[in-house]
């Protein structure tokens, strides 16, 4: 029985696993419980069949055939009511069970087959991992089977003494193996990979500690706390509250200040890279261009750009980047520390001096004033006069040889080449943004886009980018059509790429965003690190936008000739402007779910099982009668000593059923004296004759055989008294 159980374990596990995979991978819904039950039953029957003796096997076949006959007759009579009608899973499950059973027979006997089974299990798991198969509870069954094979192999190769029986060992330790798999089988695992957040935090702390030790000994390091020079789009971000910088402002006005640290120009679909390290004085030319544009426009410079003062103090930030606001007019960083231009950034030539401080003036743009829209889209080109006025405003001499107007043309070309690419919006994205990108000019379109993004969802844990996102278009498709949530880097990226698709040079900037209430000193913590897009408007300069939801930036003041400032237009993104399509969609009533047709099913008719049952029972009776008859005739035809031996053996088997079997190494006499008190002397009185026949070659007569038959009858009566069930089985078989 142990052997049967051992083979059954090896059969049932792959069978159940395969059935579970089959049911989970099947297009239509399958009755999983019924399939598993049939699978188990089939494996049990196969196992029984293998371990029965010839008579049992014949009986088994007979019952199976009679059942099949009965089912066939029912099906023939009324196929539509046959309970197995339409159960297309039945044959595959039976086939799987049979195949598993054969596999078990081989796996329990041959080591290469066992090893192949383990390899097959792992292959199946890999296929499931790669989504070629649907994962479910079948995974754990397969794992259990693999563990069983491994344990079996270890048991086989492990040399020990003592009574060795691999089958008993495996059956006895199976509950432990089952426990290994059972506990995880009922845990609900997340679908996302583990983010190792605590490890990342730990690592960052270690890195910070190492940086603190290394500070002052290395140059050009890019180790930052909060702010980073890495343009990667992370799966999630965590806030951090280290004090990186401090700024001091003189204007007693609430405002938002953006300090640019590093600009990126190339996006590969998954991260921004800085490939431009030109020493061209981009910042100075940008300021000059904007001021020149303002001078060339109607109105005053202060209508469009307002000069502000700022002092920046480095606290814990250890960076080679100089954090500067846009449109910097002048600053003393160049004198105080050795800095240089690096592809639109200002960087220290060595490391940042400890507790470095610099101050300077910059120009804030009146970006949210409606008149500014007209200014941005007027299409005017700069003149030399405007340029010289701008130079004067910057405190430089006109015709400054370092910033010639001719070089400005080259600067424009340089910007277009560096910050443009061939981003193309897909049809779906174009359709989605068709109502958004409407306006009189590019600036208005981008302000509408900014407002559109402001209505999306802010999420610091958007999850990993799918592997198929490999370029800008794919990123836009994913972000704007599927994900529609993320943090500042995602929105800045999407905005910059969309601007590029409109033919406008755009860049991705990382730095700090600080909201101040008034004048004074304000500490910048690392959680204020931010990313935003900047777009270049020819003849006007770079303008920063704020598409990240919840981070809106208001920069608007009344122009000199402006009587009022229309709040409707200024605060439109605060109100939440939706596209026309969204408006229409919001009014559509929700559709009722379609009513699915319920299949008409017949109830299960138990009487359809009766006929096969009757057939099987009838066959069983006939079989038993035939067996008994054959046995009776066979015994009668035996010679006396053969008959005696047969009957004596039968008597001993009856004693075994009573729990009084002969022990290993025990002689018949010892056995007789041991069990005599239980059976009585008469029942075992055949033993003396039996001993003489076996050991002394005694010839026995028919009377002796008849005497053995009487002893058998006595023992049967005893068996009936002591163990009725065994008695019943005995008389049946």
């Amino acid at each position, binding site marked *: 029985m142990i052997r049967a159980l051992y083979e059954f374990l090896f059969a049932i596990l792959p069978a159940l696993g395969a059935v579970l995979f089959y049911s989970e991978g099947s297009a239509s819904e399958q009755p999983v419980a019924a399939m598993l039950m049939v699978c188990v039953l089939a494996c049990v029957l196969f196992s029984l069949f293998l371990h029965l003796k010839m008579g049992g096997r014949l009986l088994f076949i007979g019952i199976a055939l009679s059942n099949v006959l009965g089912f066939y007759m029912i099906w023939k009579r009324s196929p539509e009511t046959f309970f197995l009608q339409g159960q297309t899973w039945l044959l595959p499950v039976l086939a799987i069970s049979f195949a598993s059973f054969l596999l078990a027979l081989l796996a329990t006997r041959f080591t290469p087959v066992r090893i192949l089974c383990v390899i097959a299990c792992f292959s199946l*798991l890999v296929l499931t991992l790669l989504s070629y198969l649907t994962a479910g509870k079948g995974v754990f069954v397969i794992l259990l089977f693999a563990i069983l094979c491994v344990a079996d192999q*270890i048991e086989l190769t492990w040399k020990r*003494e*003592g009574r060795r029986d691999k089958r008993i*060992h495996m059956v006895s*330790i199976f509950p*432990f193996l089952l426990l290994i798999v059972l506990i995880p089988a009922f845990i609900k695992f997340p679908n996302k*990979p*583990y983010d190792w957040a605590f490890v990342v935090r730990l690592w960052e702390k270690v890195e910070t500690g190492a940086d603190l030790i290394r500070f002052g000994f290395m140059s050009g390091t890019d180790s930052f706390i909060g702010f980073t020079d890495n343009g990667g789009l992370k799966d999630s971000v965590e806030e951090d509250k280290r004090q990186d910088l401090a700024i001091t402002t003189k204007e007693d006005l609430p405002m938002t200040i953006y300090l640019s640290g590093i600009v990126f120009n190339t996006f590969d679909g998954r991260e921004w890279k800085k490939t431009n390290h030109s020493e061209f004085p981009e910042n100075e030319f940008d300021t000059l261009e904007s001021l020149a544009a303002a001078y060339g426009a109607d109105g005053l410079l202060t209508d469009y750009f307002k000069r502000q003062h700022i002092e920046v103090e480095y606290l814990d930030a250890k960076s080679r980047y100089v954090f500067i606001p846009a449109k910097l007019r002048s600053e003393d960083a160049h004198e105080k520390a050795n800095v240089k231009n690096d592809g639109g950034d200002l960087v220290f030539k060595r490391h940042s001096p400890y507790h470095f401080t610099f101050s300077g003036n910059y120009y804030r743009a009146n970006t949210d004033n409606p008149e500014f829209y007209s200014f941005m889209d007027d299409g005017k080109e700069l003149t030399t006069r405007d340029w010289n006025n701008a130079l004067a405003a910057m405190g430089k001499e006109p015709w400054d040889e370092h910033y010639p107007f001719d070089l400005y043309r080259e600067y424009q070309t340089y910007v277009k080449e560096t910050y443009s690419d061939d981003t193309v919006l897909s049809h779906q994205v174009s359709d989605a943004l068709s109502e958004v990108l409407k306006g009189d000019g590019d600036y208005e379109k981008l302000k509408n886009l900014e407002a559109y993004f402001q209505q999306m969802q802010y999420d610091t844990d958007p999850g990993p980018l799918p592997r198929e996102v490999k370029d800008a278009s794919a990123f836009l498709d994913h972000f704007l059509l599927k994900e529609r949530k993320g943090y500042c880097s995602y929105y800045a990226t999407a905005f910059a790429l969309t601007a590029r698709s409109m033919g406008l040079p755009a860049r991705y900037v990382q730095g700090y965003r600080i909201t101040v209430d008034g004048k004074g000193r304000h500490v910048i913590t690392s959680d204020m690190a931010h990313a935003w897009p900047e777009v270049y408007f020819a003849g006007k300069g770079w303008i920063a936008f704020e598409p990240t939801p919840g981070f809106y930036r208001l920069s608007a003041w009344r122009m000199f000739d402006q009587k009022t400032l229309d709040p409707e237009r200024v605060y439109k993104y605060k109100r939440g402007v939706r596209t026309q399509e969204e408006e229409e969609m919001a009014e559509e009533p929700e559709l009722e779910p379609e009513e699915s047709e319920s299949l008409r099913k017949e109830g299960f008719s138990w009487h359809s099982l009766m006929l096969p049952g009757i057939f099987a029972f009838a066959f069983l009776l006939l079989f038993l009668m035939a067996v008994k008859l054959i046995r009776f005739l066979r015994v009668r035809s035996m010679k006396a000593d053969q008959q005696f031996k047969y009957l004596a053996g039968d008597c001993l088997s009856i004693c075994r059923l009573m729990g009084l079997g002969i022990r290993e190494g025990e002689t018949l006499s010892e056995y007789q004296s041991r069990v005599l008190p239980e059976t009585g002397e008469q029942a075992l009185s055949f033993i003396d004759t039996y001993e003489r026949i076996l050991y002394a070659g005694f010839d026995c007569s028919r009377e002796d055989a008849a005497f053995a038959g009487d002893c058998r009858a006595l023992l049967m009566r005893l068996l009936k008294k002591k163990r009725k069930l065994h008695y019943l089985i005995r008389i049946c078989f």
Partner: protein
Amino acid sequence: MTRNRIVWALLWILSLVGISFYGGPVSYGFFAVLTLIPVICLVYLLMVLACFKMYQRFTVPGIVCNHSVPFYFILQNEDLFSFAGIRVTFYSDFSQIDGVDDETEYELLPHTNIKKETDMVCRYRGEYNVGIKSVILRDFFCLFKLTYRNREPMKVKVLPDIINLENLQDVDIDSVSDKNTSSSLSHPDVTIREYIPGDDIRRMHWKQTARTGKPMVRNYIGEEKEGIGILLHSHRISSDPKEYLPVENRMLEIVIALALLFRERSIPATVCYYAKDPGLQIVDSADSFQALYKAMSDINFEEGEVSGCLYDAMMAGDAFSKKILFLVAPEMDEEVSAVLDRLRESDAEVILYLVRSGVEKEVTKLSPHITARTIPTDGQLPDLL
């Protein structure tokens, strides 16, 4: 076991990589299963530890040193799950189990037991643990090994061995048994000598004493000395059984062997020793030899300060009147040196047996009448004496 651990560790690292890149039941399930494997293996080991039973027994009542005694042990599994790997280690410092290897590993299926009948030989006299020392259990994946020290070790009292000597290298036995006391073995012809405490006061030579100012006694030519004295310096040299057991065992073997030799030659032997108090045993019959054997079996060597004990034992046994005195000691310490000095003055014939571990046998003549023989703890005693 190392290989299985490495394979498990590699798979576990692989599972960590898996959950870092993939979510879902496959990667996490694989990780969870691999993490649970060692946990369940440990649980299994603890269950085996709780359910495992062992028995051990000797079939003879007394154990004599260097004589094999029948010994058996049974490992039993009365539970429903098999015990995958069981290894039994034995105490081996002072005893040896024949026919059973410490490296043998057993498997116990449910409701089975293993009975091993073998022999055990105890190498030294004394009281110490023998038999099963510890049991090492291994799980079915060979990942872990749990060592369980036997909480009820078998402590046995091993009796010293009785060795038959044919002869002694330093002594002519026949001359010792010579009853002619008119001529002593090798005493010089000295008529008067200095008084030694213990001398008979009637032998005092008062005139010479007054003349010299020192007590002097008459020393009769052919002074009568008879019998054999065996003096045991029962001082423990170390607290480590590995150091003192072999030495003490050999010393007792020498004492018993000498007593037996002289008893068989009908030469009375007086055995002097000290335990808490000086002990004395005159061996001149089978019963007295048995009594000596019992005393030697029960004697506890003294570990602490033993100054003067040897001398007291010697005086208790009247050692100076013996023809030959055998002194059995573990080392040449102050006590032994003091006794030898005294014996030197008395011109007694002394054979000193110094028993030590890890030395070769060596004979040294300390004085005309004192011979020192270094006896190693291993080797056949008849060859050494």
